[in-house]
């Protein structure tokens, strides 16, 4: 089998999947179901963006909410004060987040493993506190987006459908960027940094430089996701966009699906958001904590039985079957599924 046919086959699969995603709202017409799909796409977009730095480059950030929040606040402030369309606002938010990533990455990348993860939490928490106490940003009161406007210019809609396509588009963009990185020499360096940092350094790869690239790109895309959040929920406050729980959720989505794989976070989002929404809608109204118990039990089960994510589990399954198929390659662990350790 040649590479070309594989690619085309993969291409066909991708196009089929995309077409299906684009047509899905035709079958799913109820707004709350569409909202559910949007939440999945939002989660997937965040996860794929996180994966660039957390997965490929192996720098576990637990502070991505800082970029998310910067994106949400930048586009919203521009819309409220200058009347600037969120199309530009989201890009501006991305740029601010990218600049912030550069500034924060420079010192933080001196740290390794858990120390780096903790430093990112600290940065995000500090930012949340600063925004909470900033009068210019309305502090803890939060910002409302205008309810009396709608349309593609202000990116506010009465129905769910346009939001669905906007976030689908943003997800496709994020996946494309991620894919391009994965296939380029940059992606190669990322994995080298992650798996063999010493060897990479010896070969003259500037570790900090490539880590910074990863963080900056990831921050830019995450911020755009934050802008989308603001447009969709039409209300932001520090607690809802800068919270560490968001940072952890972003990472969980990627981990659940499979870290360092292109489609991992998408699958992770499908599963995590489904568990989250279903456990809450089915059991949350009892007030007895049952939804938390079910949600947590599922998470633990996945972590215990599928440590390299659901994609890893599927891989194992396939490997198990593949042993009996003629022409199948011998099993090999994917490097990108490997862990990150100091």
């Amino acid at each position, binding site marked *: 089998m040649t590479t070309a046919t594989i690619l085309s086959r993969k291409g066909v699969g991708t196009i089929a999947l995309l077409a299906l995603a684009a047509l899905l709202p035709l079958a799913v017409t109820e707004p709350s179901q569409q909202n559910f799909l949007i939440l999945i796409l939002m989660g997937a977009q965040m996860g794929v963006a996180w994966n660039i730095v*957390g997965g490929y480059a192996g720098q*576990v950030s637990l502070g991505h909410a800082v970029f998310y929040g910067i994106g949400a606040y930048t586009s919203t402030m521009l819309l409220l004060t200058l009347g600037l369309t969120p199309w530009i606002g989201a890009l501006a938010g991305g740029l601010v987040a990218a600049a912030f990533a550069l500034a924060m990455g420079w*010192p933080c990348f*001196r*740290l*390794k*493993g*858990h*120390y780096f993860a*903790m*430093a990112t*939490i*600290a*940065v995000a*928490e*500090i930012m949340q*506190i*600063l925004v*909470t*106490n900033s009068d210019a940003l309305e502090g803890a009161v939060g910002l409302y987006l205008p309810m009396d406007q709608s349309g593609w210019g202000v990116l506010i809609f009465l129905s769910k459908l346009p939001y669905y396509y906007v976030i689908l588009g943003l997800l496709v963009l994020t996946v494309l960027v991620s894919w391009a990185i994965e296939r380029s020499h940059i992606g190669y360096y990322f994995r080298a940094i992650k798996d063999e940092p010493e060897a990479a350094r010896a070969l003259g790869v500037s570790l900090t430089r490539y880590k910074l690239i990863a963080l900056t790109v990831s921050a830019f895309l995450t911020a755009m996701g934050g802008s989308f959040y603001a447009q969709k929920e039409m209300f932001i406050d520090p607690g809802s966009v800068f919270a*560490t729980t968001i940072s*952890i959720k972003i*990472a*969980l989505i*990627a*981990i*659940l699906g499979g*870290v360092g794989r292109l489609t991992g976070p998408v699958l992770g989002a499908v599963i995590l958001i489904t568990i989250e929404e279903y456990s809450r809608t089915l059991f949350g109204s009892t*007030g*007895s*904590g*049952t*939804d*938390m*118990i079910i*949600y*947590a*039990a*599922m*998470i*633990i089960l*996945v*972590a*215990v039985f599928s*440590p*390299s*994510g659901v994609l890893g589990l599927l891989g194992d399954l396939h490997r198990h079957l593949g042993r009996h198929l003629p022409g199948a390659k011998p099993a090999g662990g994917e490097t990108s*599924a*490997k*862990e*990150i*350790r100091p």
Partner: protein
Amino acid sequence: MTADILIQVLVSGLLIGLIYALVAVGLTLIFGVMDIVNFAHGEFLMLGMYASFWAFAIFAIDPIVALPLTALLLFAVGVIVYQTVIRRILKAPMLSQIFATFGLMILLRGLAQFFWKPDHRLIPHSLVSGNIALGSVQFGLPQFVAALGAVGVTGALWMFLHRTRLGTALEATAIDREAATLMGIDGQKMFALAWGIGAACAGLAGGLIATFFPIFPEVGSNFILIAFVVVVLGGFGSVTGAFLAGIIVGLIEVLGGFLIGPEYKTAIVLSLLLIVLLVRPRGLLGKA
């Protein structure tokens, strides 16, 4: 500002700092022995608080008297958690381990709400209550006893790690597992022990603060961030480091909050953490 007020603020900071230290030593011990960050540590604290509460509510045992019981109970919880969940993810990537302990955190909160309702509770009258006044400096007896207990427990833990055979074996496992195994130390047992002791420390902290802190299923979330900060500041895995860092964090938090503004107290502590990490990327006493 008068000297009196400054001394008062420092004393308050020291007292809460010692509590932070006690919560954090358990966390750092678990990390030191097996490289796992336990997100559910705050929930061990919560369980310790509930253990004291129920001992008081059902058997009328004072939280201070119930401390050994609380420690024992939480030791068992720690070992059970290790045997049922952690043992299975030893070989998993760091991210999956975070995932598992995060799930554990939510699970324990959910179970607490399920069995004990989301109510806030408090132990109304304990053996230790009231205030101590030294000149113009005042502090609560419960807080004082809790701080004293924190010093005692951390001291005992230090002695155990450095002066007993079992403790030395635990330390050896932390430093080099393979070598420890060659010396005939059972790694699995050591891991279980680390979880037991780690959880017991958090449980003791819970028992000690149950006399003055409200008890509810989510109480762990108040403490977990600070506990992480203390562990990182002290250096992952260093019990002595966590102890020192706990005191520093307590002092800086209360003093910074008093001088600069309480709304920034956590930001001040986190900034301190970042600055220390920039100078010492492995915390104050972290191992290379």
